């Protein structure tokens, strides 16, 4: 079993996130692995751990990211959790990619991994906490010509097929498809493992392979700002809210709340 897990380097949601010149500021001291990708890593590792011994020994879990060099933070975290290999695609030509440019680069990297041997599964988180678009998994599946089984709450791999259950806004569903396939997992799918000391130490010295756009044979016109079909033209912080009206409940707090709503025509 060979699994590629996509990981993203994102600004920490607990830090102050901002734009400069319409681009997201990616301060290396405040960047981190997208938390939702930990669920993807956990799902991939569990799939491999559930295999019979002989299959497990020949399995490989590869963490793949498209990021500037600071994105190694995300790959180190993936190594701490237990992946076998980390690959970073970095190129100035990829800056300001939209969903399609990002997907094109990811698909090219997966195809390069496929030249070494089949990739049975591509696994992703349900969203990245910076953009929250949730569409790259489905787009990547389309680029790779695989069925996409996204937003999984439960995951089963058996007899060469992937089966998931999911609960979306609209329905509870059970989906199944033969491998190779693409899987995205919801944050309810599992509780990511806490890395043990041995893996944390080992992760420090692991190799991170670096591939450029040229290594992947990417046409510069299809990625980055050149290939983008949308452009951010304005970015401004929202005005601060006025001081909160704070009431200590001394028996009439509920009444005061209701009166606030009535006064502001919210009822």
């Amino acid at each position, binding site marked *: 079993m060979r699994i590629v897990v996509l990981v993203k380097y994102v600004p920490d949601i607990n830090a102050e996130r901002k734009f400069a010149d319409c681009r997201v500021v990616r301060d290396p001291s405040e960047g981190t692995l997208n938390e939702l990708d930990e669920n993807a890593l956990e799902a991939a590792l569990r799939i491999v751990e559930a295999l019979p011994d002989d299959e497990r020994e020949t399995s490989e879990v590869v963490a793949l990211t498209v990021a500037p060099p600071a994105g190694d933070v995300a790959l180190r975290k993936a190594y701490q959790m237990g992946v076998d290999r980390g690959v970073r695609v970095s190129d100035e030509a990829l800056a300001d990619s939209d*969903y399609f440019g990002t997907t094109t680069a990811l698909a090219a990297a997966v195809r390069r991994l496929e030249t070494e041997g089949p990739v049975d599964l591509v696994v992703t988180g349900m969203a990245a906490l910076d953009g929250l678009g949730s569409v790259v998994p489905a787009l990547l599946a389309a680029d790779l010509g695989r069925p996409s089984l996204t937003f999984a709450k439960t995951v089963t791999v058996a007899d060469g097929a992937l089966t998931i259950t999911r609960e*979306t806004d609209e329905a509870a569903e059970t989906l199944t498809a033969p491998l190779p396939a693409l899987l995205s997992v919801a944050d309810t799918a599992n509780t990511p493992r806490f890395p043990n000391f041995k893996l944390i130490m080992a992760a420090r010295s692991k190799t991170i392979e670096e591939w450029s756009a040229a290594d992947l044979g990417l046409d510069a016109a299809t990625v980055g700002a050149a290939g983008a*079909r949308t452009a951010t033209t304005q970015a401004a912080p929202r005005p601060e809210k006025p001081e909160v009206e704070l009431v200590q409940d001394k028996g009439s707090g*509920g009444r005061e709340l209701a009166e606030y*709503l009535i006064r502001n025509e919210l*009822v």
Partner: protein
Amino acid sequence: MSEPTHNRTVLVLLDPATEVRSSVLELLTIGRSLGRVEAVTLEAPSVEALAQLGAYGVETVHQAELPAELRGDARHLSAVVAEVLAAAVRLTDADVVLAPSTFAAKEAAALAGRALGAGVVIDAAGVTSGTDGRVVATKRVFAGSWDTACEVTTDVAVLTVRANAVVAQPAEAAVATEVEGFAVTVDAPLPAVAARTATARDADRPTLEEAAIVVAGGRGTGGDFGPVTELADALGAAVGASRDAVFEGWFDRYVGQTGVTVAPRLYIGAGISGAPHHRGGMQASQVVVAVNNDPEAPIFEICDFAVVGDLSDVLPQAAEVIRAHKQQA
């Protein structure tokens, strides 16, 4: 809404077609500000839906005719919906596609954009015409702390729009609505849908995604959502929860950046501390009210009005005053 300045054709996704949800009425309203609006469905619209579409100025509904094997549960797969949208754009030479910001519609919009070579914006908070005639979407990002504008630079624009982006308004004059079929084939590799149960909707309450008012409960409820529900009922609001409360099994759906993201006119958080995850799902709300017995709760930093007190006292009292006020009105 200003009159259209361009002769655009705007397609709005209507799925399901048995009812026209408030989010779709909002899309139709936005669509009319951009050009002539038409609807796309994957099933026959109900009589009620057709009447509402007429009231909102939709003269044509394009109903996809899918191959037999895709007419069942598989028609809900995002790759199928995407092919329907792409085929409808090719058929009508449409310039803009608008879809709600549900999980499946977001995927379908992106895949349709892929098939059409069109620019895609997900989770727009507003859609307008730019000075050069291009479609510009506004977005509220980073937990509602920044506003951005995003211009679509391709001829066709595909956008998903958050609920409550505009106030839905019928057209000045209702029109007669015709349904026209069109054939759609799907080449994409699809998973098999082994089982599907549509989520039951509470007829007495607006959905969390679409509600104008949301009342949510957190750890501070101690598992008793009675006071939260009572206030929601008084206000005609949807009920939500924090992720903690859902993980405790006290409620089924949570507001948060990975749960349901809401931007209602009024958001009331009770017994919710306001962790970054939760704030990411509600901070774009127009008015935020919080009730918490911890005066240090971070949610107080982003509120307009707050009560420090026990929610089991505050919420029922507020509900009683609101019910009395509504009876008078």
